[in-house]
């Protein structure tokens, strides 16, 4: 009976997730091209061998890992900080909440286009002039999006700017669910701000934090829009990602099988990462 209720969702998962993945796996073992009169051939693991021998793909994997390692803690930390600030009761709280959430509402491609203009090279570019003012003239103007060192960090900043609001709202909801009595008890016991934060807030937020970190990690591996619009893989693969390489292979070079192989590898990597995360940080579940 329970299975019957879950059936529509299960069917959806099967049709839109499981079957396409199985197809991708099968395609990755062939030499399928987008539109080719040549017969389809079985290639075994040749496609996988090729993509791992491709410098662009291995760099993409590394970039994805670096991106996740940097963005997840930064974005979660920033979101937590903002949520804590907004949890206070002060005038204009709702206005600030709306302002911090607004970047999330904009389509990612729009954000990428605007940030491309912000990162304009030369002293008149917005980011360059901002950094020059803030550093009292010590900053030398750079072309962020075409600099091998700054391309990926530039994309990181854009992503954090866009995504923090969403995490902030989830963490704010989690904060609001913490019962007030715990804070009172902590105050009575003489805990300071840091003590309250470490021993009351964080443990109570555990489930929410784990969820936020998990979702941000998965999204970090899906990085595509900013790369496509801002850097197109960046100078010498400095900012390319697995999704970008897969789309380039499948649609620009018409090598669907190579793209399929890349997406299979991505799936395995993300699965491994989430399984590791689950092992180290199990969410607490109340059993009734």
């Amino acid at each position, binding site marked *: 009976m329970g299975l019957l209720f879950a059936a529509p969702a299960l069917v959806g998962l099967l049709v839109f997730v499981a079957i396409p993945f199985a197809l991708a796996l099968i395609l990755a073992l062939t030499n399928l091209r987008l539109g080719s*009169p040549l017969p389809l051939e079985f290639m075994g693991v040749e496609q996988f061998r090729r993509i791992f021998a491709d410098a662009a793909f291995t760099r993409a994997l590394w970039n994805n890992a670096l991106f996740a390692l940097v963005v997840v803690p930064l974005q979660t930390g920033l979101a937590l900080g903002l949520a804590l600030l907004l949890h206070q009761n002060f005038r204009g709280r709702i206005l600030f909440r709306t302002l911090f959430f607004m970047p999330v509402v904009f389509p990612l491609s729009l954000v990428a286009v605007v940030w491309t*203009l912000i990162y304009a090279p030369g002293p008149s570019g917005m980011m360059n002039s901002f950094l020059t003012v803030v550093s009292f003239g010590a900053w030398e103007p750079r072309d962020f999006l075409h600099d091998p060192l700054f391309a990926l960090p530039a994309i990181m900043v854009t992503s954090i700017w866009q995504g923090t609001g969403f995490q902030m709202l989830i963490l704010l909801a989690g904060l609001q669910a913490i019962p007030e009595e715990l804070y009172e008890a902590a105050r009575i016991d003489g805990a300071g701000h840091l003590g309250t934060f470490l021993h009351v807030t964080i443990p109570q937020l555990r489930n929410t934090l784990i969820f936020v970190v998990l979702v941000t990690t998965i999204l970090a591996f899906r990085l595509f829009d900013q790369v496509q619009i801002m850097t*197109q893989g960046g*100078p010498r693969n400095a900012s390319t990602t697995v999704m970008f390489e897969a789309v380039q292979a499948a649609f620009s070079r*018409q090598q669907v099988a190579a793209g399929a192989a890349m997406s299979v590898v991505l799936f395995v990597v993300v699965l491994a990462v989430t399984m590791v995360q689950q092992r180290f940080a199990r969410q607490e579940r109340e059993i009734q």
Partner: protein
Amino acid sequence: MPRLTRYTECVVTRIRPVCSFGLVLLFAFLVACQREETAQPESSGATLTVWAHAGQSSERETLAQHVTRFNQAHPELQVEVTFIPERSYNAQVQAAAIAGELPDILEFDGPYLYNYVWQEHLIALEGLVSAELQNDLLPSVRAQGTYRGRLYGVGMFDSGLALYARRSLVRQAGVAQLPTHPAQAWTVEEFSHLLRELGGNDADGAVLDLKFNYPDEWFAYAFSPIIQSAGGDLISRDGYQSADGTLNGTQAVAAMRALQDWIGKGLVDANVDDAAFTSGRVALSWAGHWEYPRYKAAWGDDLALVPLPDFGRGSRTGQGSWVWGVTRYCRQPRVAADFLEYLLAPEQVLAMSDSNGAVPATGTAIQRSPLYREGGPLHLFVVQLSEGYAVPRPQTPGYPVISNAFRRAFADIRTMADVQAALDRAVEMIDRDVRDNRGYPVVAPP
């Protein structure tokens, strides 16, 4: 749980089920009606489906007007045109091709013609398009539309690529006479010297706009002529089997190093706002025919059109634009050909050239065009296209990969990477693709 009032109870137990049932009946009725409406009679074959790219709005309007007038003149035949966004046009055509859902007449970007013919989507236009029309076409348009000796596509216009220059600034830099014919083009040494002189007079030092803000296909279109001018090419045109020695040979590397040198010296503007030339930041702009209206409006008589520099074997430039073809799904190729002949008549060609500023594809139309005829401001483009200075992009089904490989190499070269290594990587990508496709053999008779 409070006991339901009598009224609510009545609604819940009697009226609501009746209403729900009624809604379900209404829905079923509407669905049935819908199905009846869409069950059209079998197409009598008097409709031609056409796909076109949604370019500038003036281009779209002109084409829509052409179609309307054609429909009015041929009441027994209806042409239906669908506009598809330009950015994803090629991908959508490929997807439709795989599903076997291509229209009767298809417009597509010239360099993809060879790919579509190889996939057997297009039929040859030999017996369908009149010989006089074929002879009236610009040599470049004919060359682009021909694959393995047969004509598969005809374009209403071709593209022009050259250097737009500010006369006054170039004169200040010490060059009094601007070349007007490709045979008089500046050599790369003269051009580099001019850039340095201009840079000395310029506020931020950047004097050349290479349209770095343009998307993908621009790079193969605009910068492969440099390599061809130096004596190399994107791929060896003898069989189209390998790019080794051609794209990464000494001449190609030298040409790209010269370009990289300009970038390294800060002579090239990034053009993020696409206004480097119009706002006066740069004196030279490496651009196509589509920029003429904007540039003319900004600088009037100070605007000059100059052929691209000569990197060793003569000035070379790009060519190629949108092309019309008939797919093999068309059941009335004769009628489709009539439509193409109509589109390529001088009035229609001129109207399109007026709306998008491109080079008209037929000799008769060129003679009547104020911009492109002998003595007109853009006649240089016609000279380039008809006297062999314009080189078609490689006519091979593997062109998409070649374009992608060159774009990646260019992106690396732009950031001061080693030119030889970047071009070697591009060659490897291209050669491997040709090998994977068994050298793009002819799979079926054309």
